[in-house]
C-alpha cells in the first residue's frame, strides 16, 4: 500500500494534525509519476478561451489544439467563435524552416473569414524551441488588420498551469485601458475568474443586478473583447479563484488603482459572503445596497434551504475526497459539504500555493490528507484507505473513483451542470445525492466484499 507514494513526493502530502504543517508545492511534476496536471498552455487556454468574439489560434502541431477544442462548457450569449478549434497544424517543414510565415498566413486567413474583435495566438512547446518570433508576427498582423493580435507566451514546458494563468492575464492586460469608460456607473464591477460553465455567470450577474451593481466585463465567461477594453472603468474587481485571474486584478490595481476582493460562488456561505462583500464595498456610495443584498440572499435561501434538508438526510456522515485543479475551489467545496453533513477526508489540487494549502489544512478536520500534484496511484490508495463514498474531480479522476466503487461529482471545467450560486448549490446537492446514494454501489466488488466482511463472512 505505502509503496504507492514516490519518495520524492513525500513532502507533497500531509495529514492534518500530524506534526507542523508544511507542504512542498509549485514544483515541476516528477518524471514517470503520471501527474494529473497539464501544462502552461493549458492554463492560458482555459482562462482566455471563453472570450467568445476573439479568435483563439493555437500555434503548434495539431494535438494541442485538438485536445482543447470546446473543452469547457463555457457558454456565450452571443458569438461563439471560441467553440471552434484553430491551429496552424505545424508540419515537418515548418519545424525545420520556422513557422512564422504559416502563422501569419493563417492569421490573415482566419481574421478575414471570421472578423473577430481580437486574436490570441498561443505559443506551444515547439514554437518555443524553433524560436518563432510570435510577437513580431502578431504586431505585423495587427497593423494590417487593425485588430489587436495578442501573443500568449504559453509554451507548455515552461512550468505548470499557474504560469499559463499569468501569461493569459498579461495578454488580457494589453486590452484593458483601450475602451471608452465614460458611461460606467460608479457602482460597477468586473467579474473575474468565472468561466460561465453551464451558464453560471448569468446566475451571478443576476444577483449583482438585483443588488443594483453594474457588471462591466465578464472575465472571461461569456466574455467580449470590447468589455475587457473597458475593464479599467469598473469600480471594483471581484476575483473568483486564487489562481486564474488574480494576476490581472493586481495589474489593474497597480495601473488604475482599482481595488479587488476575492469571491467564491460555490456553496451557501461563500456565495452570500461574496455578495455581502461587494455590498459592503459600495455601501457608502449606495446606502440601500446592503438591504437589497440581504433581500436577494433571503429570497434565494427561502427556496434553497428546505430542499437541501431533504438531501442532507441521506448524505449525513458520508466521506468525500476532493481533487481539483485550483486549490481555492476546494475551500468552498469543504464548506458546501458541511451543509450536506458530509466529511471531507482528502483534499488536493494540481496548482495550489503554500498559502492555499496552509489555509486548507486549517479548515479541515484532523486526519484529513492534503496533497499537491497527485497521481492515480496515490489517489486510489487514499480513496481506499480513507473509505471514501464520493469523489469530486474532473474527467481524469472519474475512472479512479468508479473503479473503486465510489460515487463521483464532476467539478471540473467540463461540467455541464451549473454548480455556482444558490441554485447551483441545489444542483450540486442533487448531483452528489444522485451519485452517493445510488443502489448500484452494493454490486461493486469492493463494496460487496466489505459488506460480506462486516457480516463476518470473510472475503
Amino acid at each position, binding site marked *: 500500500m505505502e509503496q504507492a507514494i514516490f519518495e520524492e513526493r513525500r513532502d507533497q502530502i500531509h495529514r492534518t494534525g500530524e506534526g507542523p504543517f508544511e507542504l512542498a508545492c509549485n514544483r515541476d511534476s516528477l518524471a514517470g509519476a*503520471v501527474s494529473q496536471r*497539464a501544462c502552461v498552455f493549458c492554463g492560458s487556454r482555459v482562462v482566455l478561451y471563453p472570450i467568445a468574439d476573439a479568435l483563439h489560434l493555437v500555434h503548434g502541431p495539431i*494535438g494541442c489544439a*485538438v485536445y*482543447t477544442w470546446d473543452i469547457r462548457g463555457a457558454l456565450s450569449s452571443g458569438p461563439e467563435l471560441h467553440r471552434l478549434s484553430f491551429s496552424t497544424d505545424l508540419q515537418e517543414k515548418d519545424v525545420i524552416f520556422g513557422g512564422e510565415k504559416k502563422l501569419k498566413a493563417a492569421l490573415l486567413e482566419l481574421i478575414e473569414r471570421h472578423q473577430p474583435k481580437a486574436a490570441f495566438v498561443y505559443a506551444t512547446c515547439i514554437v518555443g524551441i524553433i524560436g518563432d518570433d510570435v510577437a513580431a508576427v502578431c504586431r505585423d498582423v495587427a497593423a494590417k488588420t487593425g485588430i489587436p493580435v495578442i501573443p500568449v507566451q504559453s509554451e507548455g*514546458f515552461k*512550468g505548470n498551469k499557474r504560469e499559463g494563468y499569468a501569461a493569459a492575464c498579461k495578454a488580457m492586460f494589453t486590452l484593458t485601458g483601450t475602451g471608452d469608460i465614460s458611461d460606467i456607473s460608479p457602482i460597477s464591477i468586473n467579474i473575474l475568474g468565472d468561466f460561465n460553465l453551464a451558464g453560471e455567470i448569468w446566475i451571478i450577474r443576476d444577483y449583482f443586478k438585483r443588488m443594483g451593481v453594474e457588471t462591466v466585463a465578464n472575465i472571461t465567461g461569456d466574455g467580449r473583447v470590447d468589455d475587457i477594453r473597458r475593464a479599467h472603468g469598473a469600480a471594483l474587481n471581484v476575483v473568483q479563484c486564487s489562481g486564474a485571474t488574480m494576476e490581472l486584478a493586481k495589474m489593474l490595481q497597480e495601473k488604475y488603482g482599482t481595488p479587488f476582493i476575492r469571491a467564491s460562488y460555490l456553496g451557501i456561505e461563500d456565495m452570500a459572503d461574496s455578495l455581502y462583500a461587494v455590498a459592503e464595498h459600495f455601501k457608502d456610495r449606495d446606502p440601500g445596497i446592503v438591504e437589497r443584498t440581504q433581500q436577494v440572499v433571503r429570497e434565494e435561501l427561502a427556496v434553497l434551504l428546505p430542499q437541501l434538508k431533504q438531501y442532507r438526510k441521506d448524505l449525513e456522515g458520508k466521506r468525500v475526497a476532493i481533487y481539483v485543479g485550483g486549490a481555492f475551489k476546494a475551500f468552498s467545496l469543504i464548506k458546501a459539504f458541511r451543509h450536506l453533513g458530509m466529511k471531507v477526508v482528502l483534499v488536493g489540487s494540481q496548482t495550489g500555493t503554500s498559502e492555499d494549502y496552509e489555509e486548507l489544512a486549517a479548515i479541515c478536520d484532523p486526519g484529513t490528507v492534503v496533497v499537491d500534484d497527485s497521481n492515480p496511484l496515490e489517489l486510489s490508495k487514499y480513496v481506499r484507505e480513507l473509505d471514501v463514498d464520493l469523489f469530486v474531480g474532473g474527467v481524469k479522476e472519474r475512472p479512479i473513483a*468508479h473503479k473503486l466503487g465510489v460515487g463521483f461529482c464532476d467539478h471540473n471545467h467540463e461540467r455541464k451542470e451549473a454548480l455556482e450560486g444558490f441554485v447551483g448549490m441545489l444542483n450540486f446537492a442533487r448531483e452528489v445525492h444522485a451519485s452517493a446514494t445510488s443502489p448500484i454501489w452494493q454490486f461493486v466488488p469492493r463494496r460487496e466484499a466489505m459488506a460480506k466482511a462486516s457480516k463476518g463472512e470473510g472475503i
Partner: protein
Amino acid sequence: MSDSPYVSTTNACKLCTPLGAALAFRGVEGAIPFLHGSQGCATYMRRYIISHFREPMDIASSALGEKQAVFGGGPNLKKGILNVMSKYGASVVGVATTCLTETIGDDVPRLLAEFRKEFADLPLPEIVHVSTPSYSGTHMEGWHAAVAALASQLVTEKAPDHRRVNLMPGLVSPSDLRHFKEILADFGVAATVLPDISDSMDRPALLDYEKLPAGGTTLADIRAMSGALGSIECGRAVHVVESAGANLENRFGVPNVSLGIPIGIRETDAFFAALEKLTGVTTPAKYINERGRLVDAYVDGHKYVAGKRAIVYGEEDMVIAMVAFLAEIGVKPILAATGSTCKNFKAALAEVTAGLLPEPPEARLGVDFHDIAEQAADLAPDLLVGHSKGYTYAKAWDVPLLRVGFPIHDRFGGQRMRHVAYGGAQELFDRLVNTILERKQEASAVGYGYL
C-alpha cells in the same frame, strides 16, 4: 499532400501521433505507455482517451521542463522509466516521442541503450520505442508505427512453428476485438492479436484499482509471432514504411495478408477467405448463417436507405471501411474525408467501391471540418458517418450522425460498439436503418406506427 486550399486548420479531423502509439501500447500485457516530452501532452491524451473508454488510462511522461528542453531530456527519460518501474512494476515500457523531444533532437534509441547499460544490474522491463512527431503524422500513423515497433523490437528470434494466426486489427473497438477472437477460436486457431485492447480498455468492475489493467497481448505470444501460420493486417491505408506483418514476413517468412478492416459483406468475405487459406479450415456454419441473416436484413431494409447521400470522415482506415459498407447497402458516399495524407487513400476507395458504385466518392486528404463543411453545403448530405466530433455539423445541417470509430465523446458505450465482420455490419445496418426511420417518424405529421 493536403487537399485543403487553406493554410489554417479549423476543427481538425485527426489527432496527434503519440496518442495512437500510447493506445496501442496499452494493448500489451503489463505495458505502460510513456511519452517522452512535456507533461501537458500526456495529460491531454489521457483525458481524451478516458472520455471515450471511461477507463483509467495512465500514461507516464518524462515531464520535461525548460531546462531539459534546452539541455536534452535524457536524464528525465531515464528517471521516469525508473520511477515507472518501481511504482507500476511494468514489464514493458512503450516509449513514444512527442513533437518537443523530436525537435530538440533527443536520440531515444541511444538514450535507452545507455539506460540499459547503466542499470544492467536491475531487472529491467522490455523497452520499446517509437518515433512519433505529430508534425508528420496522425494518431493512426502513431498506432501503426507503435505496432510495427512492437513486432520489430520484441520479436527477435524465429519461434518454433505453431497453429496461431497473428492479427493486427487496426484501431477498432474492444467489442470488435472480442468478436475477432471469437472468430479465430471458431476456426480452431489461437490468435495473437496485436495490440489487444479488448480487456485493458474495457474492464469489468473489480475489487481494486489496477495499476496496470490486466489483458493485452502477452510478451510470450508476441515473441512467438515469428512461428505463426501467418499474419492478417487490417486497414487499407498505408502508413509505415514496413508494417508489423511485412516485418515478420521479411525476417521470418511468416506469410502476411493485408486487408481492409472487415466491415460489410465484401470486406468480411475477404477476411474469412484469408482465414480459410491460412488455417486450411472452412468457415464454420455459424458465420455462413450470420452472413445469410445479414443479406436478409440488407434486403428487408434496402428501401429505407436507398440513395441516401452520406459524408464519411475520420480515420483513413475506418473511412475506407465505412465507404465499402455504405456502398454495398445502396447508400451513396458522396465525400470521403480524412485529416491524414496517406498516399493510397483514393486508390483504396476505388477498390472497395468497384462494381458497387458508378464511381468512387470524392476523396479528400489532409482536410479539417471547415473544409468538409464548405463542401457539404453543395453536397446536401442526408447523413454523416464518423466519430462524434462531427456532431456540431450534423446539428447545424439537421442530418443524423451515425457514430462510428474513435472518439465517441457524446454517447455512452463507444468501446462496446461493434463494427467488424458480419455481426458488426448487422449492428451497424440496424442502427443506420433505425436512425433513418426515427427521423422519418419524427418528421411525420401523422406519426406512423408502421414504417
